[in-house]
């Protein structure tokens, strides 16, 4: 899942100064779940545009703006409305806006900011998080990930900055290394606290791994069409 928030209206307005007619496009996937690109928001955006003097040639919410095959099919049905518009206002995430831009030879304005979810990767029924670092350290830290449980992502013990067990960076958040300490104490493995963990091989998670791992049905269809 990708989380997005609608930009301030003034910012959106500032993007549209050269245009008179707009087509509004929402995303029924993550953006709808984020409350930034579903039916309600698209309706609201269209209304605001109308109020402010723009002509809305049409609007649609498509399940996933990132799925170009699907978006192409859906937009074909309203091609006249797209044709008529000077540009498109895209209420999706950054990927959705980019994907639509590849299909339509008109400017697609982003209506949303795509924001970090921290280490939260999507909806699942627990609070545990994984940074996907490629060098799992859970063996040495009592099964709690120091990269995600510690604000600074320290690998070798607490920074010493916690106050009454609370993180100095994020008030209210428990000190991650104190949680690790408590857990190791509980399982009688405090000896592990002396384990020195080497610096991370950052390239393992700063960059996407082999293309094979990014392939999907959609990717395959797109690649096929591209050839």
């Amino acid at each position, binding site marked *: 899942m990708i989380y997005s928030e609608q930009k301030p209206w003034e910012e959106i307005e500032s993007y549209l100064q050269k245009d008179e007619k707009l087509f509004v496009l929402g995303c029924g996937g993550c953006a709808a779940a984020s409350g930034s690109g579903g039916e309600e928001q698209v309706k609201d955006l269209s209304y605001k545009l109308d109020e402010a003097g723009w002509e809305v040639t049409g609007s649609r919410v498509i399940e996933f703006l990132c799925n170009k095959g699907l978006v192409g099919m859906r937009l074909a049905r309203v091609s006249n409305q797209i044709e008529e518009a000077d540009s498109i206002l895209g209420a999706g995430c950054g990927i959705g806006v980019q994907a639509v831009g590849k299909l339509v030879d008109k400017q697609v304005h982003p209506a949303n900011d795509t924001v970090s979810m921290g280490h939260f990767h999507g909806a699942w029924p627990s609070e545990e998080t994984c940074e996907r670092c490629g060098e799992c350290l859970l063996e040495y830290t009592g099964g709690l990930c120091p990269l995600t449980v510690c604000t600074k992502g320290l690998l070798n013990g607490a920074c010493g900055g916690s*106050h009454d067990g609370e993180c100095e960076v994020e008030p209210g958040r428990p000190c991650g290394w104190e949680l690790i300490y408590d857990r190791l104490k509980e399982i009688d493995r405090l000896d592990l606290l002396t384990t020195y963990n080497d610096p991370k091989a950052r390239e393992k998670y700063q960059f996407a791994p082999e293309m094979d791992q990014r392939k999907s049905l959609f990717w395959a269809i797109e690649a096929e069409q591209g050839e």
Partner: protein
Amino acid sequence: MAKFREKVNGGHFVVTCEAGPPKGTEIDEMLGELDEIGQLIDAFNVTDQQSSVMRLGSLAVSHKIQDLGYETVYQLTCRDRNRIALQSDLLSAEVLGLKNVLALTGDYTTMGDHPHAKPVFDLDSPQLLDVIRQLNSGIDMEGNALKGATDLFPGAAVNPGADPMEPQVFKAKMKEDRGAKFFQTQAIYDPETFKKYVKELRASGVHVPVLVGVLPLKSSGMARFMNKNIAGAFVPEEIIQNLEKADDLVEESLNVCAEVIKETRNFCQGVHLMPMGWEEHVPKLMKDSGIA
């Protein structure tokens, strides 16, 4: 000039004093204030953009201070530099004649005056110590040979007031294992906590010399603020009340610090002073506590 190292290694008592670079390029005033203190101490400890506030760099200021004839402890944090920059700065420090480095993780970016900055933290403090060990042995952290090694004397920070204390004992052990040759602590107001921590260190086989951190309280309000907000800082209530009652606040505050120094003298191998604006009172404090 490596007297600080010789004294620390030789088991002699040392005194360092924090010097905070200015926010801007006007450095003469700061350098001018150092002379009186400089005669009394072993090294100026130059902070690296303390509390994540963007300032003049510790490398340049350490160099300037050494030019005046005083030794420095160059502070280096992992907050703003990746491993390439950290190693390069350490090589630069060597070339500039800086001999002592304090390896710190660093405060988080959001705590300072540039909260939108990217927090780097590519390495943490034990890893930075390990890097210094490697550069000293003539290789970089990837094992590539250096054309000329460093000869740096690495130190680290520890926090005796952390609650629970035990993780800070483990961390100190780890820092010793990665090459820390001296420790300096956060500000201490309760000598008993400090003594207990040092005893725990020694019992755990950690033998790195410890410099007790001393920071004069500017007011009772500051003391209460620290108790509430600063990790590991614990100012006993009695001290706060004495500050409130005191006719001469400066006198009383310096007394508190002098007591800490006297009380901990047999449990540490030096003092790390953090005057933070009270530089003018440092000579008196040192005299009162018997270290000048």
